[in-house]
């Protein structure tokens, strides 16, 4: 299975490109301090320097900060926020979805109404409101993003669990006398792993976009250099200095693209029906 899976994934050109992109971003984040040892907030050159001046590959911003340094260091923030908020959202989503799906009844109903509510409430607006009110910090941003991202996953997991619950191997486990907890953890969840992984990979992408949008609006953590912040702070000088918003935008685009490609690749690779189709 795993070999098949890897093969199917590797055959998907997009997925491999995505993986390569994300690997580069991760390396960038890990080795940020080696690539650009100085603080990305440092005003190292003349303000408004266009790309390729003063040894600044992508130019400098309005305070003379090196944009390339910001991009390299910003990768950390984006990945950190993307990953942690996704982890949190996956935790909430799986928990609620599994409980609602497995136990059903009024509890499941209640949980699903609750989930639907969160799907109806306009996500981005809620994130903005929460972060604005609780003041922007990595914690508040991650919390807010997780808070608005779990709902679709909960629904997905519930659907999967619901269908798995009535599957015969689960019923067999019941007739064999396994406890509910064991059944959920050992029988059911391993079988919804693939859709969860696929959504999680896409959620990381969405979380990165959300964070960048928040930063763009000036709701980023003021101590963290992030790509969204760079675009947002440069928007007012767009006419004078295109490069200040261009490069960080490209960074977000490429990262999110990479994650999406991976997500799609995983989706196809996990889905045996598509696995055959794509190779045809």
């Amino acid at each position, binding site marked *: 299975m795993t070999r098949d899976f890897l093969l199917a994934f590797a055959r998907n050109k997009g997925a491999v490109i995505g993986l390569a992109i994300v690997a580069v971003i991760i390396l960038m984040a890990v080795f940020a301090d080696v690539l650009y040892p100085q*603080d990305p907030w440092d005003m190292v050159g003349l303000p408004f320097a266009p790309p390729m001046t003063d040894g600044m590959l992508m130019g400098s911003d309005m305070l003379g900060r090196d944009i390339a340094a910001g991009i390299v260091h910003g990768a950390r923030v984006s990945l950190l926020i993307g990953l942690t908020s996704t982890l949190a959202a996956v935790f909430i989503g799986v928990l609620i979805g599994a409980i609602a799906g497995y136990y059903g009844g009024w509890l499941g109903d209640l949980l699903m109404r609750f989930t639907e509510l969160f799907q109806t409430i306009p996500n981005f607006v809620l994130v903005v409101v929460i972060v604005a009110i609780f003041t922007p910090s990595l914690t508040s941003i991650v919390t807010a993003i997780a808070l608005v991202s779990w709902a679709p996953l909960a629904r997905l997991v519930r659907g999967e669990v619901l269908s798995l619950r009535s599957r015969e191997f689960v019923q067999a486990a019941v007739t064999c006398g396994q406890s509910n907890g064991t059944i959920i953890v050992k029988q059911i969840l391993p079988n919804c792993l693939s859709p969860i992984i696929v959504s999680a990979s896409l959620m990381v992408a969405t979380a990165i976009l959300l964070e960048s949008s928040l930063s763009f609006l000036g709701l980023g953590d003021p101590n963290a250099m992030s790509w969204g912040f760079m675009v947002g*702070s440069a928007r007012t000088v767009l006419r004078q200095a295109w490069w200040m918003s261009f490069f960080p935008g490209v960074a977000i685009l490429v990262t999110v693209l990479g994650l999406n490609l991976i997500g799609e690749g995983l989706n196809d690779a996990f889905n045996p029906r598509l696995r055959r189709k794509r190779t045809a």
Partner: protein
Amino acid sequence: AEETPVHGGTLTAIIQPEPPMLILGLNQQAPTQTVAGKIYESLLTYNFDLSPRPSLAKSWEVSDDGLTYTFHLQEGVTWHDGEPFTSKDVLFSFTKFLPDTHPRARALMSRAESITAPDDRTVVITLKEPFPAFLQGFEMSTTPIMPAHIYEGTDYQNNPNNNTPIGTGPFMFDEWVKGSYIHLVKNPNYWQEGKPYLDDIYFKVIPDAASRALALENGEVMQSQYNDIEPFDVQRLAALPHLQVIRKGYEFVAPLMWLEINHRVEPLGDKRFRQAILYALDREFIRDRIWFGLGRVATGPINSVTKYYDPNVPRYDYDPDKAIALLDEMGLEPDGDGVRATVKFLPLAYGETWQRLAEYVKQALGKVGVKVVLESTDAAGWGKRVANWDYEITTDFLYQYADPSIGVSRTYLSSNIRQGVLFTNTMGYKNPEVDRLFEEAAKEVDPEKRQDDYSQLQRLIVEDVPVAWLLEMEFPNILNTRVHDAITTAIGVNETYADTWISPE
């Protein structure tokens, strides 16, 4: 502008944000002042050097002991609804209306022992003790004269006439399309013969900064003020042939910007640390790169355009080495990461420029080993935290209101350490000598002695660095070159514009 004024023409100006109302006695936000300043008048206005000049008061006398102020009112003044203007209106405004609605006027008038009107054209105010700055308190934002015949005996906030302001000024309220524009028209019965020159004024609400710049560029509006135009756009607009930038007209408020430092937090209580901060900051960089050249590097607690300013004070030119020396002297050694001390910085939540400043401060202090952690908050949170001394370093700017005893001493007097109240001595700065001098100077009637006191004060305070002064802020008034005599006094765009005229195209 030596040409002769021409009658006629429409002035269009930006107004941003849209004022909540136009009743100047009830609201004194900046946009309200700008629009309502054309409708209402006060007893005096002020020259660029802040010396008083007549408005509704034709002349005035101050007794030698500095206790009695006598104002003689203009003849033939009527309200826009035709009612005559008399000393009764002044009395009503000073004793009833303003003390009820306007904190700054309340503070001012509470210094009066008695306010009387011997006749229709005279008002006499007797003070409890001498207060030479009293004469600076009669411009239209502090003590606008409100019509007694409309407000006497009513609930001022909910008076039905609040939608149609009635003043004595050269322009009358005509129409207000919310979210779009406010239209004022010429007052044909204005008490100054032959004025105003303009037929009418449109104040246009343009919420977006880029659109505002565009509107000035294409001539759609002829005037902008305060920070209507983003600092980085000002130079570009200034270069256009049909626009001029006038930086005068803010002498009365004279905003001074500083880093407010909480002395209760170690090591901020140490004078040397605060001096180090000032040395570590390149204030010319702040002026040129963050405010794009708008402003002057501040030398001390008094703005150079305010009265009793003295340039002869200790200087803190950009010198990180000195800063490091001071920190060394304090025994703050750098740790493994080169950090000598960590402070939290709470920037003002007024938008991007202030954010850039915070980022700069963080970097600049970081260079001398002071690690700055930025906090983030909103205006409400900021106010609450600063008022309650729950901060370490923050940015702030205060108006000086033409006299140190009004706008400056409030920041440094130890008697003004009042928890929960904003714009007081929130740093917790205490220097008995400073307290003594401020109190003495406030009552000193002799201008020379006063100057001495204030000079001494400035040297004392600058030595202590209770706050780290950054810039004397300048706001650009960007005007179409066809507009003449708009900025003629220390209150700039808030002036009545009775003298303003437009040359034909």
